[in-house]
């Protein structure tokens, strides 16, 4: 492969490339998960890796999520740098004991002696008519647990750099891929690079209102910002990229300039990360705010299977536009 400026990769190809480069360089990087080996994964995230690195390093597992995470943990403590895949984020629920009570806490419980360089990868998000048990956004659940890092890229460039950082990180990290972004294409450098975990990125600068959004919502927020710009409303769109640890500094710095903020997420609004972010903005920039911080999220209901219902359920570009307009116009009432 030669360096070709302008080379484009999809979001999922950027993921695969990050894994491949780390595997090529470090024999301790091993992968395990359902259907990831021979088939390359139901989202093709691991495509070609078994052919390149062999069945001992890219393992098709039985359908046992709890054991998949536990296995990765055991191998990690023993000097490996495993990547384990949970096909759908919803099924992390099957493995929550290993994730919450084990992976997140082993270093602490071993008095610091154990290191868990484990990466858990998974497909999250709605919009595929995949129904209530294949569509959830459960990032708040994970971010609530001290010990875990949670990463949620919104584009191919960040995907490659963040995935590489997850693999090299000495803590258990969860890499969430949004299922609706898998085919999104963008220029991605061929060489290795590491995007630091815990650093937000200002994707679009603006002075009127700060919009915080991640995963697919970042892209919807950018589209909404284009619409609003036509009416002279300039949004500053911030993609936190890593949800735990969360870079509140970048957000607060922005809000102190714009004096208004909207947090957008695909997850259910109640108990979602929007509440935490809004609260931290309020704690750190109260005197700068011209309106209450708004939160846009899904209603308090499971994700519907019906495409019509699902389209109404997921926060849309139009609703982001509406929310920003009302924050610009007047203080909001909570929901």
């Amino acid at each position: 492969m030669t360096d070709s400026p302008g080379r484009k990769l999809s979001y999922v190809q950027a993921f695969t490339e990050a894994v491949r480069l780390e595997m090529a360089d470090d024999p301790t990087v091993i992968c395990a998960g359902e259907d990831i080996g021979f088939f390359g994964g139901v989202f093709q995230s691991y495509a070609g890796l078994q052919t390149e690195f062999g069945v001992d390093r890219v393992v098709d597992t039985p359908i046992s999520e709890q054991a998949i995470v536990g296995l990765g943990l055991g191998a990690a403590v023993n000097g490996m740098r495993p990547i384990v895949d949970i096909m759908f984020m919803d099924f992390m629920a099957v493995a929550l004991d290993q994730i919450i009570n084990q992976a997140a806490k082993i270093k602490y419980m071993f008095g610091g002696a154990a290191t868990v360089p484990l990466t858990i990868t998974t497909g999250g998000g709605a919009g595929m008519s995949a129904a209530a048990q294949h569509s959830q956004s459960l990032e708040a659940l994970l971010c609530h647990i001290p010990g875990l890092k949670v990463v949620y890229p919104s584009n191919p460039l960040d995907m490659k750099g963040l995935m590489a950082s997850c693999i090299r990180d000495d803590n258990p990290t969860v890499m969430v891929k949004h299922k609706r972004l898998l085919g999104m294409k963008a220029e991605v450098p061929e060489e290795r690079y590491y995007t630091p975990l815990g650093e937000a990125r200002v994707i679009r600068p603006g002075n009127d209102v700060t919009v915080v959004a991640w995963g697919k919502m970042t892209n919807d927020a950018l589209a909404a910002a284009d619409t609003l710009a036509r009416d002279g409303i300039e949004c500053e769109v911030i993609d936190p990229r890593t949800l735990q640890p969360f870079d509140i500094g970048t957000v607060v710095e922005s809000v102190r300039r714009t004096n208004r903020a909207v947090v957008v997420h695909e997850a259910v609004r109640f108990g979602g990360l929007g509440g935490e972010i809004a609260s931290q903005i309020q704690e750190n920039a109260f005197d700068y705010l011209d309106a209450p911080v708004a939160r846009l999220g899904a209603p308090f209901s499971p994700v519907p299977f019906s495409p019509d219902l699902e389209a109404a359920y997921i926060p849309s570009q139009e609703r982001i536009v509406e929310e920003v307009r009302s924050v610009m116009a007047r203080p909001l009432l909570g929901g």
Partner: protein
Amino acid sequence: MTRPLSDDDLRAMMTHMIGARVSSQRAFNLQRQGRAGTNAPIDGSEAIVVGAARALDPTADWVLPQYREPVALQRFGPEVLESYVRYILGDPDGGHIPEPVRVWPPQISLATQVPHAVGMAWGMKRTGETGCALVFLGDGSTSEGDFYEAANFAGVLRAPVIFVVVNNGWAISTPVASQTAAKNFAAKSHAFGFPGTTVDGTDILAVYEVVSEARERAVSGAGPTLIEAVTYRLAPHTTADDPTRYMPDDELVAARGRDPLTRFQKELSGRGLWSDDDTTRAEADADAVMEAAIQAAEADRANPIELFDHVHAIRTTRLERQRREWIDHYGEDPR
């Protein structure tokens, strides 16, 4: 003792197998036409489901399917198919199979239905009902902790439950050899302390026989049975799958030669109970039933307002408020 099958039983069984395949293929095509969501074809498992259903008492026993079986449970009433069609069209009402039909809706979160079945059977024992619960699960689903824990429970509780492991050779792209090192799935019953047996799942009469015996054990208080029914998946995993990428062609061709429908058709023709005309009629009838179910479901599509109806038993203040907000936004009936 196994109830002998009358000629009418035998003809009904053939009719149901044909109906199952016709409905399943129409469901597949509906997804292709954008009229239904992801669904999983039954091709190859008809004899297992129809044979098992014939051995049960629809007025006393419960069936807990995985996701392929609903099209083959005609014996439990037309409501099963009608609900299934609504379900794949995305209507939340599709998950509600009206009383007194004793069939649970499809289960997508693998193996979670297994402890539910044991719980139902345990409940029946407590209330002194004479029936049993029969649960279907795939070869791949046996790798989940839910299966082992529930089967162990069933043994301890001597619950009137029948586990039918549909071994169709595959779990998406993962072959059985990657799922277990045991010589067969029936052998696992030894660890739970109850009998297990392997049956040819393309032979409907053999399936009927073993399920009848298992039912006898269950209702007489002798406890659970594990049945492994061996067949081959003759269709893609789901509408979202492309098996040509992993399924060896020769295996599939050989399995097509052991098609359970052809096998039973030959058997009944030999006994003078079935003709080619009967096949044509059964196919046409099944098609008409399916067409009516589709029409009914399409004429009564889900209303987005229904999103809030079944989150809790009674809508909470929050749900009530959200529902009102949605009505303000979308109208009472935006369909």
